[in-house]
């Protein structure tokens, strides 16, 4: 009895022996990969023994070997959005693709990790056409470089964080086809977004009234 058991226990120990590994951004991506379902093995090139992830396919670095772009839109990749993404601090473009229909249960569902608010260099965040739930993280107010934020066609709930009005660079905001509630901010960039950006949110009550008693009921 004892010997196979101890062999199994020792195997666990062998697994923790030190190994040469990639840089922190590579580690973040590698632990993200561990969560993802990748039936076509398109992330095969994500070799954590390389010194950085810059030669991994679907990853783009700048000339200082910092990850600026992540394209998972290529094939059948699905899984939860990991908080690891928040460690890619130089990321400029994030596109989480719509899931293939046959992977309905395993797609990028769940909440939007608040850690995405750490991506201070992010220019574009495309999370549309997924099945994301929960609220739009208030931490998005830290995305000072953000120009494009597309969250449409998900199952997001709660109100539109007023903090987003601080995103002075925001040019495109689309939160249509969700289950958001409350009122629509009117400050900052929100003064310019068309009504279509908020379409099809049954419980959304229209623009907030300033100077009056806020009527954020039902949210």
């Amino acid at each position, binding site marked *: 009895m004892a010997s196979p058991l101890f062999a199994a226990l020792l195997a666990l*120990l062998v697994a923790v022996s030190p190994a040469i590994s990639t840089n922190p951004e590579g580690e973040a991506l590698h632990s993200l990969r561990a969560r993802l379902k990748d039936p076509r093995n398109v992330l095969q090139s994500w070799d954590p023994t390389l010194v950085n992830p810059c030669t991994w396919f679907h990853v783009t670095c700048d000339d200082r070997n910092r990850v600026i772009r992540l394209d998972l839109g290529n094939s059948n990749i699905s899984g939860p959005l990991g908080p690891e993404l928040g460690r890619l601090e130089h990321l400029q473009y994030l596109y989480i693709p719509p899931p293939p229909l046959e992977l309905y249960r395993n797609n990028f569902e769940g909440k939007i990790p608040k850690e995405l608010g750490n991506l201070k260099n992010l220019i574009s965040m495309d999370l549309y056409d997924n099945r994301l739930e929960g609220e739009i993280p208030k931490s998005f107010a830290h995305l000072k470089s953000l120009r494009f934020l597309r969250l449409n066609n998900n199952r997001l709930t709660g109100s539109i964080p007023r903090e987003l009005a601080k995103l002075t660079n925001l040019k495109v905001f689309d939160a249509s086809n969700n289950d958001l509630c409350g009122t629509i901010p009117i400050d900052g960039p929100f003064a310019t977004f068309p009504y279509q950006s908020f379409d099809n949110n049954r419980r959304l009550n229209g623009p907030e009234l300033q100077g009056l008693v806020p009527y954020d009921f039902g949210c």
Partner: protein
Amino acid sequence: MGPATQRPSFLLLLSVFCAVLTVACGDVPADAVLLLEIKAELLDAGGALRSWYPGGDACRWNGVTCSDDGARIVGLNLSSSGLLGSVPLVLGRLGSLESLDLSSNSLIGKIPPELGTLENLTELLLYSNSLSGGVPPELGSLRKLRLLRLGDNMLSGEIPPQLGNCTELEVLGLAFCRLNGSIPGGLGHLKRLRILNVQRNTLGGAIPVELAGCSELQVLAASDNLLIGGVPPVLGGMGALQILSLANNSLSGAIPAELGGVSSLAYLNLRGNMLRGPISPELNRLSRLGVLDLSENDLSGRITLSTTNLSSLQYLVLSNNSLTGGIPDDLCPTNSSLHNLYLAGNQLSGEALTGLLNCTSLRSLDLSSNSFSGVIPSGVGGLGELVDLVLHNNSLTGPLPPEIGNLSNLQTLSLFHNSLTEGLIPVSLGYCSKLQSLALGDNRLRGPLPPTMDMLTELRILSLYNNSLEGPLPETLVLLRNLTIVNLSHNRFTGGIPPLLGSSSLVLLDLTNNSISGGIPAAVARSRSLARLRLGHNLLGGAIPPELGQLVGLDFLDLSSNSFSGKIPSELSGCKQLNHLLLHGNQFTGTVPSWLGSLRSLGELDLSSNKLHGRIPVELGSCSSLLKLSLHDNSLSGGIPPEIGNLASLNILNLQRNNLSGPIPSTIRHCNKLFDLRLSENSLTGTIPPELGQLTELQVMLDLSRNQLSGEIPPSLGGLLKLERLNLSFNRLQGQVPSSLGQLTSLHRLNLSYNFLQGEVPATLSGFPVASFLGDDKLCGPPLEACSQSQAGKELSNTAVAVIIVAIVFTSTVVCLVLLYIMLRIWCNWREVAVSSSDSEGDERRAGGWSCEDGKTSRSCDYWKVNSMSSTVVSSPRGKKQSQAAAAPCIFHLKMEQEGALEKNSPV
């Protein structure tokens, strides 16, 4: 149970006699018949049952044990006998069996429930087979059972709670199966249970607190399941427990301090759960603990463990948590027995090694990926037992101390990604003669490699990238015959490649961005396992040796930015595994080889900035995995092959600056993953295919500028909602700017200049600066000058346009003549007038390229819009308007600056 009725009467008598003698009846000759039935059912590939033959003495048969008096068969042990087939049902009739061992065979099928009738059974061992189905609940009636091991099979279903009735059970082994459900609380009735092993199943639910009733339990192994809930504090009362392994489950909550009360505990493994909170100092009471693994959790707080108390501790693994603070001095004082200390991936800070210098028993130390700072103390030389010293991803400074040479057992030295500076690699490093892995990349080391490097003959990994190391690669490196991974990239090394080729086991050779010169020696190809060869950004030249084609496992070949010349050898077509082929920035001649189409794994192909000519081979369309294709800055001619549409995964396509002609193939619509498409500076003709509008992932750039494209801008381009930069300038595009372009909400830079566009600029594009539309003389409307009515006409037939043009020309000629006449009259009258300069227009023309819409300029664009609108309203259709508009940009630029400054200072 006995098949007495079918036997001769004397046997019946005998069996009755037996039955009188013992409760469990059995008789050897009758059982022998059963054994022969068993033999018939099994496929005995190994000949283990050769001795079983009819009429033989069953007690002498292989694997058969009889009772001391020779009257009953009490044991059957056919372990590791190479048996195939299913577990014979007949076994259920061997009523006298006390021990049945069929482990480590290749048995398939279900465990027969009939085994539940073998009521004398004390040992049932069926582990390591390929049995499927459930664990039969009938086994619960085996009241004498002490040993039940069914693990390493494909058993599914739940653990039957009836096993709780086997009150004599001492060992229950159900590991490495596919059991689901939860661990039955009824197992807590098993007062004699010593070992419970359910590792590696898919068991869920909580750990039943009833297990605490197993007061004799020594081993509780439930790792690699889906258990949830907390670690039950009652486990702390299990005084006999020696091994507790709950690793790789989904357990949450804190580690109960009560565990500190299990004084017999020798092995505690809770790794890979979701445990939170601090590590209780109560665990220090576990004086017999040899292994403690709490890694891969979310534990926080400071390390409060001490080997002063944990005097037996050899392995301490706390990696990948959220621990903070420094390494306490009493973690490992003198006379400790700690061998392996792994604290990687936490938020630990302070001096890395100072607190551990007395921990002379250490063999393996991993403090990587923390926030440790300070220098590596010279005292590190006292840790003479060290085999692995892993300190990468920290903020260590100072030099690598020469005392490192005292670590004669060292095999791994990993210090990459620190701030090691002030220094050379110490000469004494050569005394670490067992060193296998030397990783000093991403530091600030400088100077040459020490001459003693050649003493490190065991070295397999040499990774020194991103330092300021210099000098020629020493010739003696050729003595390092075991090298597999060599990464010297981003240094200042000079000399040639040959010193690194003493090994024929290279897997990775990366010399990117040094000043390596000479050619590529054919000897590189001796390393048949070479997967990555990166020699980019050096001073290498000559031809690519055809021998590289022998590297059938080559995955990455980067020879970019050197002075390689000649043709791309066809032998490279042998490198079928190539994912990246980067040959850009050289002087390669000849054509783009058609055999590239046979490299089906190719994901990145960059042949840009060479001297390649000829056509783009249609075979490239076969590289269906291609993500990046760059052929720009060559002299390629002919058309873009329609087969480009087969590259359905393509992200980036860059064919700029060649001599390509013909139309843009409409098949390009299939490349719908493209986010960057550049075809500029060629001689492409025909219209812009409307299918381009289907490339909805286009984001970085769509550049078709400086070609000879004609026709209208397809309105479908308005579908490129993510597009940030669009350049169609310097073509022969006609017609109006489609209003759909106004939907390009992401558009950030737009250049439609120098075409033959006409009509009104769509209002939504009026925010772009004039430069976006320069040279399209018939365009009007903001930001350009206002449209006169005829220009604004939108849906007019060609004849109507012609008529209007003629009319305009005629009228304006007349008007001009009249004006000229009036002016002449005025001029004659006053003879003095100021004419504004037209310099500004020239400036705009030279600016040519991009017109930005961001920041300050964007405000100015708005301003410009407002002004031009007001000018439309205010100005009357008089001749003077022309000269006003020509002078306008200059004046407005000044205003823009002021306005921008004002907006900055004043609160919005």
